[in-house]
C-alpha cells in the first residue's frame, strides 16, 4: 500500500482500557508511596512489597498502554523483552551480590 495515503481508521473500543490502566497505576503508586513514606512495616518486607508493586506497574504499562500482545506473527518481541528483563535483573542483583565484600555494598 502507498505509504503516503491516508489510512482507514478502525472501530475500536473506547478509552476504557487506558482509563483503567491510568487508574491502576495511580493506585499502585499511591500504595507504594503511602507504605514507604509511612514506614508501614519493617524494611525487608517493605522493599519486597515495593518491588511487587513496581512489577505490577510494568504489567499495566505493557498490557494496557503498550499493546504488547498485539503485533503480526509470533510474539518474538515479547520473548526478547522477557529475556531482557531476566538479564537486567540478573545484572543488577548479581552485581550487588558479587560486590558485597569488604565495605563495598550494604544490603
Amino acid at each position, binding site marked *: *500500500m502507498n*505509504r*503516503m*495515503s*491516508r*489510512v*482507514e*481508521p*478502525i472501530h*475500536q473500543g473506547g*478509552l476504557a482500557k*487506558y*482509563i483503567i*490502566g*491510568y487508574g491502576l*497505576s*495511580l493506585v499502585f*503508586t499511591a500504595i*507504594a*508511596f503511602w507504605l*514507604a*513514606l509511612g*514506614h508501614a512495616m519493617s*524494611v525487608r518486607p*517493605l*522493599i519486597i512489597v*515495593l*518491588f511487587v*508493586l*513496581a512489577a505490577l*506497574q*510494568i504489567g499495566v*504499562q*505493557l498490557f*494496557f*498502554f*503498550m*499493546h504488547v500482545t*498485539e*503485533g*503480526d506473527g509470533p510474539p*518474538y*518481541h515479547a520473548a*526478547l*523483552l522477557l*529475556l*531482557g*528483563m531476566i*538479564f*537486567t*535483573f540478573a*545484572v*543488577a542483583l548479581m*552485581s*550487588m551480590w558479587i*560486590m558485597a565484600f569488604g565495605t*563495598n*555494598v*550494604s544490603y
Partner: protein
Amino acid sequence: MASVTSHLRTPEYRSAYQALKITGFWVFLATDMLLFGCLFATYLVLRTHTDGGPTATQIFDVPGFTLETFFLLTSSFTGGIATWAMRSGRTKLTVSWMLVTMLFGVAFLLLEATEFAHDVMIGATIGRSAFLSAFFTLVGTHGSHVSIGLVWMFLTMLQVLKRGITPQTARKVFVVNLYWHFLDVVWVFIFTVVYLSGVVLS
C-alpha cells in the same frame, strides 16, 4: 501482505514494512532496558558511598518526586489517548493529545531541573561522592531520554499535521508512544529503587 482482514488491524501494523519497524523498536527497547539495568546496578552498589557528604534522605524531596511521578504517569496516559486517537484516524485529536503529553513531560523536566539545581546549591554535586555521581547519572540519563523524547514527539506531531494519519505517520505515533511508556516504566523503577528505598532505608 494485504489480507481480507487488514482493515481490522490497527493502522500502524497494516503495512508489513511499517510493522517491521515496530518490531525493531521493541528490540531497541530491550537494549535500552539493559542500559538502565547497568545504571541501576551501579547505583545499587554505590548507594551508600556518600563519603561523609549529602545522603539520600538529605536530598530527596518527597513532594517534589511525588509530583514528578504524577506528571509522568499522567503524560503516559495522555500519550495512550493519542495512540487511540491515531487509530481512530483523527488527525487533530492525535496532535492535541500529543501536545498535552509533551506539556506534562516539560512539567516533569522543569521539576527535575529545579530539584537538581537545589541539590547543587546545597553542595550535593555530581562530583561530590560516588553516591551522588550514580544518582545524578541514573536519574539524569532518564531525564535526557525524556528530553530526546520531547523533541521526537514534536517532530512526529509536525509530520502528522502535515501529512495526516498515513501508514508511516501511524507507525511513528505508535513508536514514539512506546518509547514514552517505556520511560514511564523506568521512572517507576527509579522512584522504587532510588527515592522510596532511599527514604525507607534511612
